């Protein structure tokens, strides 16, 4: 098991390293940050001075020692979660990210819970009553979940429930009811995904020999479903749910922009509009890191649940 986890850990770290390289190249490829920080009338001396402060006078990669190159400095600082100063804000990128992180985590959790409390029962129902109205409703939900553009769903929800009926606020993060629409927008896709997974896992399990045995020896129908079938059917969706959580947290940019939710997604969006590349770099790195950490934890959980992985 430790070999397996060690291998995954090394792979994750390597992935993060390559992502940092990509992020670095993207930011450098977008142009000289000085052209955004200084106005057109800055004299060459000032230009040089800012360049030296930011380390722009150093080579990108080819330097000795290697950590004295621009990429090296970026990497060393990123490892300490220091992404420099934001261009569009007097604070540092880390401060900005820390300030916005809770909102994103809360929204991700809300969407996660939403996707489970709707998706899982619907999946179980439609697997138990195949081709019934529940099953067809489930299929429709799954189809809509895959096909609905998330930003449009959000806007339609705002139009109906915030502007027409005025049940919930149209945007921002205030009371508990301001969570409802963004969470639905963000979680909608995963309602469908959870439903499909649970349904197919349940169908597979219900078709197995040990369920037939349980039925034959006279276990009550609810007992078969809840004790025998569901527990075994939950393993594949459970791992997927871990991945879902990562995707929900890092995929919040659309929902946050539509609802002006003060999280990392909105921060990334405004940073992009203002060409604030240090902030963008920081957010992409933090998101990728979080995604990898969550996946790593899921791997541990999975190995814990499923002995076949632990001993391979």
């Amino acid at each position: 098991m430790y070999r397996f986890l060690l291998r995954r850990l090394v792979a994750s770290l390597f992935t993060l390293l390559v992502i940092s390289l990509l992020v670095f190249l993207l930011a450098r490829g977008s142009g000289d940050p000085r052209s955004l920080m200084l106005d057109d009338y800055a004299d060459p001396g000032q230009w040089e001075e800012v360049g030296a402060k930011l380390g722009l006078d150093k080579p990108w990669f080819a330097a000795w020692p290697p950590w004295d190159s621009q990429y090296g400095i970026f990497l060393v600082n990123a490892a300490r979660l220091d992404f420099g100063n934001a261009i569009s804000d007097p604070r540092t990128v880390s401060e900005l990210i820390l300030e916005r992180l809770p909102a994103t985590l809360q929204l991700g959790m809300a969407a996660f819970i939403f996707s489970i409390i709707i998706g899982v029962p619907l999946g179980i129902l439609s697997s138990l009553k195949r081709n019934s109205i529940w099953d067809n409703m489930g299929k429709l939900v799954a189809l809509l979940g895959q096909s609905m553009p998330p930003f449009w769903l959000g806007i339609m929800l705002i139009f109906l429930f915030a502007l027409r009926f005025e049940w919930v606020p149209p945007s921002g993060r205030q009371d508990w009811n301001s969570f409802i629409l963004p969470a639905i927008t963000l979680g909608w896709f995963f309602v469908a995904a959870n439903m499909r997974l649970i349904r197919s896992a349940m169908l597979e399990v219900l078709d197995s020999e040990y369920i037939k045995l349980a039925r034959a020896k006279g276990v009550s129908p609810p007992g078969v479903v809840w004790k025998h079938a569901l527990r075994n059917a939950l393993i594949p969706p459970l791992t997927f749910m871990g991945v879902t959580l990562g995707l929900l947290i890092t995929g919040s940019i659309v929902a946050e922009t539509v609802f002006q939710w003060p999280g990392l997604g909105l921060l990334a969006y405004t940073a992009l509009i203002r060409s604030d590349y240090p902030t963008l770099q920081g957010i992409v790195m933090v998101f990728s890191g979080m995604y990898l950490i969550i996946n790593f934890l899921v791997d541990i959980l999975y190995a814990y649940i499923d002995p076949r992985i632990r001993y391979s």
Partner: protein
Amino acid sequence: MAGAAETRQLEVGRSLTAGASLSLQWLGRRFTLFFSLTILGALVVTAVMAQWMAPYDPRRGDLDDKNTPPAWVGALTMERQVVDGFPEDENTQISVNRASNLAVSGKVVSLSGGTLTREQVAAGDQVLEVIRPAGSTEFLLGADDQGRDLLSRIIWGARVSLIVAAVTIVVGGSIGTALGLVSGYYGGWADEVIMRMVDIFLALPLVMVALVLAVVVGTFSVPYLPMKEIHMIALVLSLFIWVRFARQVRGEVLGLKTMDYVALARVAGASTRRILLVHLLPGVMNTVIVVGTLQVSVVILLESILSFLGAGVAPPTPAWGSMVADGRDFLKTAWWVSTMPGLALLLTVMAFNLIGDWIRDALDPRLRQQR
């Protein structure tokens, strides 16, 4: 191998009998297929013939037609009490955009110069001010905030969506298939490198990185490329789409390469290139087609998200995503501006999803049970 073929045949048989016994469900499948093929056909025709089908110029509108509602939406009126010959208003005259904008006590008063004068209304009259005129067949789906016909813009937007989807699938699919073939067939370090790359692309926050890339790439100047921005978006997206092809194709190749016919081809002296292109590629083609159709909907959604966030297809060119964004500020007064292009997106993506599912079932009966 014989075992695999046997179970495959068994499952085909099982699903055939299941289909016969559930003719109602079968009818439903038929209907969804008909429905999605109709939408797809309409979409392709629209995209190809946009310049002949669109009633108006999608880029130019008359501000007089700002936010005109769709044909079936009625007028929005507000009742006002006339005091001393004038409505309760601080102005001495009601200024209106159109001559027909005011109805007094049920009968329309024709106005000169868009204003209402003292002679036309008496004190105590109930005045019905038309805040927004009713829709007309002039603009079937209404007009946006710049007075542009939404139907025409949706028709032209179909072209954008389909071009992006086609280019992305062809480019990303080719790269992914090639890398998947190499990775599956060679194994070893090539496999390791390619699969690590796949992992990396899967770990990236997709929308965000695509967004940054689209903005960065948008600044490149490419000479002699028609519709440059559309192709650029497609290239950015294919960077993320190849991964899905590579994974599936690799898995398929891992199974295929142990087959006897591949070994025989090698013994007969076929070159690696020949084995890859002539013996393995046709074998994975089904998978490529299935992944390709299913990814079309993903690509269209991604493009619309980028356009919605303002990093996709730039404003004057109509793209469905940016059209939805246009209507955000007028939701309360003109809901149709956001709704109509979103519906077009929803129907299109749904059609591609249904067709993708259907093709998967048709080409690969083994997958049918997993649904």
